[in-house]
């Protein structure tokens, strides 16, 4: 290496020598310890060779009869005149290349892209700490990867990933924020469980994970909508308070005892007006009731302090003793049984089918047992405590 550098640095020249007895000239060069190389015999009286520039003076001094002419400079000195001639142009060129190289490797802006101002600020500060900021040199791919990893390791609960993209003279930093869904407190965790046994007809799930589906038979206490949200691999991803409605076909029996003899009230068409005052403790009417049998209807007029005033209408009625025949009695008993069942149902619940199981007439009374199939809401929120996951050893 050193030899090569020395060779480049050595100022060599191609010399053209014109004169007689060139063989003697060469012999004498040897005697003067002048090394020559690449000797060319141009004419009978003209040769050229390459030698050190320092030898020229020695040759000129010793061979005054010969015409010695430097034909060319070798190595770096060959371009020296060109450099001197074009020094301004070359200086500008070098400066331009230098500036170009710098501009290609300098960052003028770091653009952090995220909707959250705090996250933007956080990442910007971290990047500045690692000297990723404006008017600094670009980092290598490996350095950027290391910086990204360090920031992610520092904020594992805030940052999901970072991407630093080099666009021209800017870095575009894209961030994905880590959103951790907090598992709810144990107190707020609940399942929807079956209050009664039956076949599920409809599930309205507002929150939670369905364990049963329509058509499934459930027993009392079975979980229908779970608060634990699990993956296919049975891993709990979230815990919520399950909410929703579960309708199922359930079966009831209603017993009614109906007297065959009954009293029927018939309005005669007579009616009277009256007033009633409700003091809160007792009710007092203004006029005495003048009908023997009557039906009374009250209509509220106004309230003054603790007193409420009612307009009362008395309808006179006649009472007739009647007796059901068996067909009528069964119909009435069934109607009363269904009414009894309907009282347990809300607007969304309904009777699906009914069947008289048993009927019996005894002591002027008809006893009837009715089997009723109803669609009823059976889901109920029940709090639960999550099971601790067993650590694998």
């Amino acid at each position: 290496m050193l030899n090569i550098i020395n060779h480049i640095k050595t100022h060599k020249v191609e010399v053209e020598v014109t004169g007689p007895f060139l063989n003697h000239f060469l012999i004498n060069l040897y005697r003067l310890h002048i090394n020559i190389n690449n000797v060319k015999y141009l004419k009978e009286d003209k040769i050229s060779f390459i030698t050190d520039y320092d030898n020229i003076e020695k040759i000129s001094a010793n061979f005054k009869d010969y015409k010695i002419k430097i034909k060319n400079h070798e190595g770096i000195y060959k371009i020296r005149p060109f450099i001197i001639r074009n020094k301004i142009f070359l200086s500008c060129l070098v400066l331009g290349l230098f500036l170009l190289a710098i501009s290609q490797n300098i960052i003028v802006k770091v653009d952090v892209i995220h909707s959250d101002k705090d996250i933007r600020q956080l990442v910007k500060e971290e990047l500045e700490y690692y000297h990723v900021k404006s008017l600094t040199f670009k980092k290598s791919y490996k350095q950027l990867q290391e910086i990204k990893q360090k920031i992610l390791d520092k904020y594992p609960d805030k940052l999901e990933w970072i991407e630093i993209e080099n666009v021209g003279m800017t870095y575009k930093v894209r961030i994905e924020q880590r959103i951790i869904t907090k598992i709810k407190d144990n107190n707020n965790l609940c399942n929807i469980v079956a209050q009664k046994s039956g076949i599920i007809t409809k599930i309205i799930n507002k929150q939670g994970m369905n364990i049963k589906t329509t058509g499934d038979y459930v027993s009392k206490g079975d979980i229908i909508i779970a608060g634990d949200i699990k993956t296919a691999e049975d891993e709990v991803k979230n815990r919520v308070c399950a909410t929703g409605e579960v309708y199922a076909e359930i079966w009831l029996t209603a017993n009614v005892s109906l007297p065959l003899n009954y009293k029927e009230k018939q309005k005669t068409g007579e009616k009277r007006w009256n007033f009633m005052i409700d003091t809160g403790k007792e009710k007092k009417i203004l006029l005495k009731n003048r009908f023997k049998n009557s039906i009374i209807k009250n209509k509220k007029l106004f309230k003054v302090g603790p007193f409420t005033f009612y307009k009362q209408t008395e309808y006179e009625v006649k009472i007739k003793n009647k007796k059901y025949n068996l067909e009528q009695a069964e119909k009435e008993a069934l109607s009363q049984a269904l009414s009894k069942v309907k009282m347990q149902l809300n607007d969304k619940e309904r009777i699906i089918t009914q069947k008289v199981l048993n009927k019996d007439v005894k002591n002027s009374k008809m006893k009837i047992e009715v089997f009723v199939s109803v669609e009823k809401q059976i889901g109920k929120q029940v709090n639960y405590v999550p099971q601790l996951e067993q650590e694998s050893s």
Partner: protein
Amino acid sequence: MENIKSFLYDKDYFISIFDKYIYVFNYLDLLHFSETEINLKLEKFKLLINGQNLSIIKMMEKEILIEGEIEKVTKC
């Protein structure tokens, strides 16, 4: 570098003859030089090179490279 060179060329002299070249290392003097004859002095003998169109291509302090139609090399 010089040490390596001395080690490799650990000889009094050596002469390499090629088709159109002859290379002599460790010669002491160039006694005569013409297109047909070159006479070199070595430490223990003289070397006479005969040929046609002989010319010196390289002439350094210890080595010389000669080009031409080499006909005869004589040790005197």
